[in-house]
C-alpha cells in the first residue's frame, strides 16, 4: 500500500509539473499576443523558454515515477510538523492584532510546551525573555521595525 502510494506520488509530481508547463506556455502565448510587442522585447519570452524547458523534465519525472523501484519512506513525524505549521500561521495572523511581543510570547508558550518541555519555569522564562530581548535588540539597538 505504502509502496503504491510512493510510486504514484512521483507520477503525480510529474503530472503537476506537466500541467504547470502547459499552462505557462498558454499563459505566455496569450499574454504575449495581448502585449502586442515583438518577441525579442516581450516580457513573456523568457517565461515561455522556462515552460518549454520544464516540459521534458516533467515527462522525465513521470517516467521515473512509472519505473520506480519500491522504496521505504523515511522517518516522518507528521503531527508535530502540522502543529508547527498551524501554530506559525496563527502566530503570523495574530501579529497584526496583538503586536509582536504578545503574539510571540503566546506562540512560544504554546509550541515549546507542545514539543515536550515540561518545566513551566523554563517555558515561561523563554516565552517572556526571548521576545523582550529581540525587541530591545532589533527595535532599540538595530533600529529595525517590528510587526
Amino acid at each position, binding site marked *: 500500500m505504502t509502496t503504491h502510494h510512493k510510486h504514484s506520488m512521483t507520477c503525480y509530481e510529474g503530472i503537476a509539473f506537466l500541467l504547470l508547463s502547459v499552462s505557462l506556455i498558454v499563459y505566455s502565448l496569450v499574454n504575449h499576443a495581448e502585449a502586442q510587442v515583438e518577441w*525579442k522585447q516581450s516580457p513573456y519570452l523568457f517565461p515561455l523558454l522556462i515552460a518549454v524547458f520544464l516540459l521534458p523534465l516533467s515527462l522525465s519525472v513521470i517516467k521515473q515515477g512509472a519505473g520506480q523501484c519500491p522504496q521505504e519512506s523515511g522517518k516522518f513525524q507528521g503531527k508535530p510538523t502540522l502543529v508547527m505549521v498551524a501554530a506559525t500561521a496563527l502566530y503570523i495572523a495574530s501579529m497584526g492584532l496583538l503586536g509582536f511581543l504578545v503574539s510571540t510570547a503566546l*506562540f512560544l508558550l504554546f509550541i515549546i510546551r507542545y514539543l515536550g518541555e515540561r518545566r513551566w519555569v523554563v517555558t515561561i522564562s523563554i516565552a517572556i525573555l*526571548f521576545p523582550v530581548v529581540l525587541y530591545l535588540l532589533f527595535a532599540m539597538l538595530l533600529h529595525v521595525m517590528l510587526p
Partner: protein
Amino acid sequence: MVDVLGILSFAVDFRFVLLVFVGSVAGLFVGAIPGLSVSMATALLVSITYSWQTTDALATIMGVYVVGVFSGALSAILINIPGAPSSVVTTLDGFPLAKRGQSYQALSYAIMYSFIGTLFGFIALLLVAKPISSLALRFTPMDYFLLALFGLTTVGSLTSKQFSKGLISAALGLLFSMIGIDSVMGTARMTFGIRNLQAGINIVPALVGLFGFSEVLMSLSVSLEDGEVAKVSKTPIRLKELLRHAPLSLWYATIGVFVGALPGAGGPVAAFLAYSQAKRVVKHPSVPFGEGAVEGIVASETANNACIGGAMIPMLTLAIPGDAVTAIILSVFYVHGLRPGPMFIQTSSEMFQAILAGGFVGSFFLLLLGYLAAPRISKVLTIPKRVLLPLVTVLCVIGSFAANNRSFDVLLMFLFGILGFFMRRRSYSVAPMTLAIVLGGMMDSNFRRAVSLASSEDNKLLALFGRPITMILLLLLLITLATNSNLFNRRRKSK
C-alpha cells in the same frame, strides 16, 4: 594589483574588526548547533543589516560565514551530527576519535586546518579575481546567460539525487524570479492581479523560508531527539605534530578552492573529494580511515573551508554565486546598490578589500575562538530541539519582515518554508531554486538583450553563438547536460 594597504586599513579598523568578531561569535554557535545553518543565519543577517553601511554588513556576514563553516565540525566531532552539510565527512573520523577520548585532538586538527583552508581560499581569491574579471569584461549578454544557465545545471547536478529534479527546482526558481514588473517593458508579469506581487518576490523572505523555516519543519518531521555529547578533556598537542600534515593540506585546499568556484558545488563536494584523495595519497594513516584518522579530519576541514574563498571568485567577478551563502551575500550587494561582475573590483575596490579583510580577520578569529571557546561549547550543543526550533521560527518571522517592513513578506517566507519542506521531503534540493531566484532577473534581461542584438544581424545563429567564449560556454553546458543524463541513464540501467 589589489591594494594590500586597503585590506590592512580595514583589518586595523576597530569597528570593522569588532563587527567581524560579533559575526564570528554568532557563526560559532550557528554552525555548531544542528538545526541552524550558516545560510539560514546569513539570510537572517541580510534583513538585519539592511540599513547598515555596506562594509559593516560585510564584516558581520564574513565573520558568520568563515567561523560558521568551521564550527559545523564541532557537532560533527562531539555528537556525530554535522552542524553543516560540509562537515558530514568530518564525522567519519572526528566522532570515532572523540569516542576514544581524544576529542580535543580531533578539535585541534579541525581548528588548525580550517584556518589553513580559509586562509588559502582568500589568498586564491586575492590572486585570481582580477584575471577572471579581465576575461569576463569580454563577455556578451549571451555569455552571461549561458554562464548562469551553466551554473544552474551544475547546481542541479551536484545537489540533487536526480538531475531532472535539480533542474526542475532551478526552473521553478526562475519562474518565481519572473514575477513582478518587467524591467524592460515596465508591465506587470505573472502577478495574477495581486498587488503585493508587483514588487516581485523579495529574495530575503524566499531565502529565509527555503533555508530557515523549511529546516525547522524538516527537523521536526525527522526526530525531536537530541544527540549525546562527547566529553572534551584537554590533552595538549605539539604544534610540530599538528602541522605535520600542512604540505598535503595545500593540495586539499586547492581542491576546495576549485570546487568552491564551481557554481553550486560547495563544501560537501569539496570535503568528499579531498577525503577520497587523502585515502589514496596517505598510505599509512595514524589509524585506518573511518576509525578516527586525523588525516581524514585534515582533508575534510581544509577543503570545506577553502571553498569559502573559492565560492567568492565567481560571485564577485561574474555575479554567479558559488554556493547558497554566496547567493545570499550577492543579495546583500544588490540590497546595498552594488553590482558584482567584471567591473566590480575596479568600481567597488573598497568593498572587495572589505570582503578580503573580513575573510582574513575572520580566519584569525576562527583560530582564536576555536581554541578558546570550542572546547567549552559542548553545553550549547545540548540545547534541546523543542526549545531551539520555536526560537528559530520567531527569528525567521522577524528576519523576513525586517527587510522591507512588509507583512506580505512574512507570508511569503511561510509559503516558501512549506514549499521548501515538501521539496526536501521529495528529494528536490532547494539550492538550485535559491540560485535561480537570485539569477533569474539577470538571465532574463541578458537573454532578451542577446536576442535583440542578434535580430539585426544577417546570420542570427552566428551572432548569438559564434564567438569563441560563447562556444566554450555552450560546450560546457551541453557536456554538463549530456554527462548527467548519461549518468542518470546508467544508474537506471544498473537498477
